[in-house]
């Protein structure tokens, strides 16, 4: 139900009166079903589940008596769809449509807990009833992402009822732009997009840059493969980003803002469109916002699937309707950016931190984190880890805590090998660095970077040479081609990797790779080329033994590189069930009779790995 507004909110009193009314409505004892509809829950069928809840409530005549809150990402995506029921804070995971009648009749109606839907603590085997006891959440500090659970991602009323737009009112009506910038500077907030530039300083430069017309931009072109932290925030709580943006616009003196959203994020895009529309109707956007005299409008632009557009100058070129090619930054974008005017561009998560700082004050914000990195950081914890999902942790937490305490350790009892942060610009860190505190400076010192928040865990079955090759071929495809070092250098490096992974590498290659890497770092035009060698340099630094195995022994220890891997039947494990015989597309495996191991003809094998995937007995080996 949308609250009918005859007039826009034109003062702080209006906003507070509305908030009071919304809080009063919300504070009834109405049971609430908070149901994740985030992108990662989509493959689990959360949309069908939502429909099942709607119908179940209707059939029971409960539609008006129970609130069904469709929300963004709850974080523990591995176990989705997630459902949290109030009162009681009961946490259910992997919920199916068939579970709905029982949830309604037992949990919602009587408060009884359904055992089979509870989360099991992997460490103790104990069932956990309440959300705040789930080990995945215990070490997290979900200051930004936590509100996802509290609000329907398409209801501005929900956002207002939990204190939304209070920071905006405070900033516009009680603070001067200078005071806001001072507060952001003093909070120690650094850009969450990757490089960690101090946000307050950026705003200040933009404010002082000459020119009457200025712009503020949300960079939601989260292109790092394996990172969806911005997606989870933008789709789950779009108003928090918008509120930060409006405050920033007031601080730097901009009246026009842009949200540049990645085309691959349809949910984030749709929810942002809705949020902007609502903010306009409520008077948080438009003329004379909350009676302050400040005017501000926002427009959405969609990306076209180009990684380089995450780079600020390329993004701005794309906003002008041109191809997304970066330019040299002799003149910073805060002075001459979009349409050659002063432009302040920040990442989605940076913007969402702003209302928090204004509400709580810089002093309080600063208490969390390390000397050089304050606040929290959202990561997408994925790969070969038990609890995949979106996590938000205080800066300074160790990688080990993230992987083992929050992530629940490595999948399938395998051994940890590396953690990759910072996307294609970052690096792979080995086990010896697991006690590294996670902040901007420590990650950079180790040869990686914070990036926009991807954390991809790799185990013994991941080949580090293949990973370096993967990032190079990604960047080769995504290089815009404007400058030579990036365009040709990455390609040349990838060719060397092709040779190494095919078993034709030589020891001289490693020296050459290091040299070429340094050339790219020094001479590329933009961050894409300058940081492109990071995956190569870190794997060379920490996993040189794997390169040597490929080059000297012509062996891929992880069994990934096809040319160096051979599949074989482990006879003592093979019961002769014949599944692999049926599934092999090459007819390379022969059935030898009941209870006799199958036989593989290696000359026919194309190393597709299907036999390995279908064998329940682990009877297909790789060497």
């Amino acid at each position, binding site marked *: 139900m949308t609250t009918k507004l005859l007039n826009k909110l034109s003062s702080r009193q209006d906003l507070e009166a509305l908030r009071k009314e919304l809080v009063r409505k919300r504070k009834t004892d109405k049971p609430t079903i908070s149901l994740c509809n985030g992108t990662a829950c989509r*493959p689990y069928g959360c949309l069908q589940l939502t429909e099942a809840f709607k119908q179940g409530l209707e059939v029971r005549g409960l539609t008006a008596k129970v609130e069904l809150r469709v929300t963004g990402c709850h974080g523990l995506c*591995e176990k989705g769809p997630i459902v949290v029921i109030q009162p009681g804070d009961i946490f259910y995971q992997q919920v199916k449509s068939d579970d709905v009648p029982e949830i309604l009749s037992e949990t919602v109606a009587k408060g009884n807990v359904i055992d089979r839907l509870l989360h099991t603590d992997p460490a103790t085997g104990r069932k956990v009833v309440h959300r705040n006891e789930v080990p995945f959440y215990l070490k997290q500090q979900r200051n930004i992402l936590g509100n996802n659970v509290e609000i329907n991602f398409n209801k501005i009323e929900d956002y207002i009822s939990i204190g939304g737009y209070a920071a905006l009112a405070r900033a516009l009506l009680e603070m001067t732009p200078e005071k806001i910038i001072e507060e952001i500077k003093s909070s120690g907030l650094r850009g969450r997009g990757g490089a960690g530039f101090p946000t307050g300083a950026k705003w200040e430069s933009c404010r002082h840059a000459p020119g009457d017309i200025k712009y503020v931009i949300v960079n939601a072109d989260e292109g790092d493969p*394996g990172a969806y932290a911005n997606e989870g925030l933008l789709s789950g709580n779009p108003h928090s980003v918008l509120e930060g943006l409006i405050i920033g616009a007031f601080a730097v003196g901009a009246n026009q803002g842009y949200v540049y959203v990645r085309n691959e994020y349809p949910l984030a895009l749709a929810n942002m469109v809705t949020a902007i529309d609502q903010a306009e109707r409520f008077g948080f956007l438009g003329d004379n916002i909350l009676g302050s005299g400040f005017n501000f409008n926002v427009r959405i632009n969609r990306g076209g699937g180009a990684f380089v557009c995450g780079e600020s100058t390329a993004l701005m070129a794309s906003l*002008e309707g041109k191809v997304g090619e970066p330019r040299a930054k002799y003149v910073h974008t805060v002075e001459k950016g979009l349409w050659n005017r002063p432009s302040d561009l920040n990442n989605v998560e940076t913007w969402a931190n702003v209302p928090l700082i204004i509400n709580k004050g810089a002093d309080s914000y600063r208490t969390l984190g390390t000397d050089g990195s304050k606040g929290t950081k959202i990561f997408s914890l994925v790969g070969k880890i038990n609890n995949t999902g979106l996590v938000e942790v205080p800066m300074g937490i160790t990688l080990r805590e993230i992987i083992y305490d929050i992530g629940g350790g490595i999948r399938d009892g395998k051994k940890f090998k590396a953690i990759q942060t910072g996307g294609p610009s970052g690096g792979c860190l080995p086990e010896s660095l697991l006690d590294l505190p996670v902040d901007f400076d420590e990650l950079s010192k180790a040869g990686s970077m914070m990036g926009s928040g991807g954390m991809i865990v790799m185990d013994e079955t991941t080949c580090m040479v293949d990973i370096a090759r*993967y990032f190079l071929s990604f960047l080769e495809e995504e290089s815009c081609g404007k400058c030579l070092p990036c365009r040709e250098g990455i390609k040349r490096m990838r060719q060397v990797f092709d040779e190494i992974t095919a078993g034709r590498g030589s020891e001289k290659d490693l020296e050459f790779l290091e040299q070429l890497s340094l050339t790219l770092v020094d001479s590329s035009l933009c961050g894409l080329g300058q940081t492109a060698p990071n995956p190569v340099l870190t794997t060379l630094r920490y996993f040189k033994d794997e390169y040597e195995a490929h080059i000297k022994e012509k062996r891929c220890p992880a069994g990934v590189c096809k040319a160096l891997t051979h599949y074989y039947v482990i006879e003592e494990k093979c019961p002769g069930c014949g599944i692999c015989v049926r599934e092999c597309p090459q007819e390379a495996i022969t059935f030898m009779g009941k209870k006799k191991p199958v036989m593989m003809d290696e000359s026919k094998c194309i190393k597709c790995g299907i036999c390995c995937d279908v064998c329940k007995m682990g009877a297909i080996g790789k060497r």
Partner: protein
Amino acid sequence: MNEKVTAIINKYSSDRGQLVSILQDIQAEYRYLPKDALLQVSETMGIPASRVYDVATFFKAFSLKPRGKYVIDVCLGTACHVRGGNRVLETMERCLAIERGQTTKDGKFTLETVNCMGCCAVGPAVKIDGDYYGHMSTDKVDGLLAKFE
């Protein structure tokens, strides 16, 4: 002048800064970017055809060739890669007898790759016709494709 294209351009008030969005909408309508539509955009909006072509070929999301009834996006983001996304792609290529970027002869499937769809937690992930499929493996490919008969 194609009315659908005109309507899309008008929706964005012929704003040149919205060229990418306009092309997105045209592609959503036709599943690819027809040459005539690109020329119409160029003429109506006063952007040289070469510039429109430049943008249409720079961004990965656009296709200048007609695409199949179902567009398959195989995610090759890092999280999907370490869990075998590439092998899922190879199996798709083999099952459909086409390579990435191509369309099956009967016009039913177009096989494309994408560098992250934002559901890394359930990788390897595949999107067909807007619906997401997670935890893919080589042995699930046949069954998944069979759903689209």
